[in-house]
């Protein structure tokens, strides 16, 4: 069977207790000899590896040798053309509250100018203009609570 994480396809076949994995033209023999509470004890080409894996929908949190990666599992079909590109759309990087709105719709702004101030975890996060342009639409007001990824403002290139 095939699995795809972060655009890398792994071809896997199982032969009883061992797995044969192919990725990037390399073939690896692996064995899973114990799993418990998200911990996997693996033998990969003869080397013992201790890994921790958690799943959250398509996301996989993987820690091996003290290093943590967040991988995204895709359904197999290769995507072409990449992600949607919402150029000019500025979103909240985390949930929080809008502390200040420094611009109005139609304002011409310069690259780096602070458009909005978001407060989260007692910290101020300033939303800057990514390039020179015009504020097209404001979606939030001062004091409003916003969710992660929520669109706050859209911009048009000047």
């Amino acid at each position, binding site marked *: 069977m095939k699995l795809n994480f*972060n655009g890398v396809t*792994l071809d896997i076949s199982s032969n009883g207790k061992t797995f044969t994995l192919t990725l990037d033209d390399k073939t690896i023999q692996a064995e899973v000899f114990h799993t418990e509470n998200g911990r996997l004890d693996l033998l990969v080409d003869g080397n013992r590896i201790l890994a921790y894996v958690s799943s959250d929908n398509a996301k996989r*949190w993987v820690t091996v040798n003290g290093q*943590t990666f967040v991988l995204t599992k895709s359904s197999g079909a290769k995507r072409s053309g990449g992600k949607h590109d919402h150029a000019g759309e500025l979103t909240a990087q985390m949930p929080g509250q809008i502390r200040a709105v420094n611009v109005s719709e139609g304002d011409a702004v310069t690259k780096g100018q602070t458009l909005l101030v978001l407060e989260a975890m007692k910290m101020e996060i300033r939303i800057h203009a990514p390039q020179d342009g015009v504020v097209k639409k404001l979606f939030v007001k001062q004091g409003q609570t916003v969710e992660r990824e929520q669109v706050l403002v859209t911009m048009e290139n000047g």
Partner: protein
Amino acid sequence: MFKKILIANRGEIAIRIMRACKELGIKTVAVYSDADKNALHVRHADEAIHIGDSSPKESYLNMDKIIDAAKKTKADAIHPGYGFLSENASFAGKVASAKLTFIGPSADSIRAMGDKAESKIRMKQAGVPVVPGFEGLESENDFNKAAKEVGYPVLVKAAAGGGGKGMRVVNNESELSESIESAQREALNAFGDERLLIEKYIPNAHHIEFQVFGDQHGNLVHLFERECSVQRRHQKIIEETPFPLLTPHLREEMGEAAVKAAQAVGYFNAGTVEFIVDPDTLQFYFLEMNTRLQVEHPVTELVVGLDLVQWQIRVAAGERFPYSQEQLTQRGHAIECRIYAEDPAHGFLPSTGVLLQFIEPRGPGIRVDSGFRAGDEVTHFYDPLLAKLIVHAENREIAIQRMRAALKEFIVHGVITNIDFLQAVLSHSDFRNGEVTTRWVETNFNWALPSEPSFESLIAAALADLTIVNRQPKIENRSGPDPYSPWKNLSGFRNS
């Protein structure tokens, strides 16, 4: 001695204080907000009182509700922890008026040191060296003039502040007005007081602080230094003691200045006198005094061999602190790393979510003060500190090795943490050489996540999908009272 103490805080520090209470045979009362209904600190307490909405203003900063909770539960004392109301003189006063004991210094000491402007004036009078700057500024014109006279870069900071909140480095005049506005807003929000002061910004300096401790009978000593220069956004992330830059002579000199500073405001209980030290001249300047227990108190506890929280409680109850300065010594080396839910690759932005995995390291010389467990949610309402990892070893080199090994075994999934970042700092030669100054993270340290996932992580993810993930029963209710864990219904699966 007290029979019951209310802990007016949350997270790891609330749990840390409850442990000390239990050891002393004192009952504990937790307070909690909506967001903390199922928080770990609530479970550690003998009693728990709901005090309001998730927003700190409605709960952990609400003095009346906290004092009411103490009265209702017949607690005799309140421990404020750090942050929130810990350095609020009017809270300390209200606690006393309600015939309860505030576990900390007197309201007068807090007031004197809490006002960064007033404290600087007092320190000058007491003969403690201070950073050049101006206090009592009001108009934009005042700020402009003061900044010019001090000379850019300047530091704008909240007169009522602490912990890096309401503090901005201003590199030139064009940045001044926006920095002031934003610092005022942050200060007003964090401390309810928007006054700012300006001082000379000393960029390449070490932040070195001295723990002081006193009883109500006139014994006041210092418990040596803590080096806290590894910072981002003016907030500490790694602290250690002792620090090699301090010669025995300099340590003695700074220790004496710290005691003098504390004496000048009639201090008792635990406090910290912060200095900045110029590594080239070894000149030191008083920065501020924190009139509370510090986040990083455990490194001092390990090296000096005292339980600071137990002693806070005992001296608040009127006991004598039995050690003289001569009896106190430093043994070995201790380092603390603050494990934050934040993304170092994206400007250290806080990260929120449900903890899918939370495994703390264990072993000789390893201590973890933590406020979370797997299944808990990290929300945007509070500081993103997940846990403190503290190690103690016979010398600095071994302590660094121990910390690096322990960090490797700290597993957190569900929120992005700074664990990989801390690991990179500890392995950097500047850190090993003790040359990290307060701006080092921003200016000297180039760190990036590896752009590609490791080979092993891909293999592990694939094998996990085949052996565990696809076998897990669907869990529908993620926000239920039980901790969410994708693995909780699985027993040890063996492939062979």
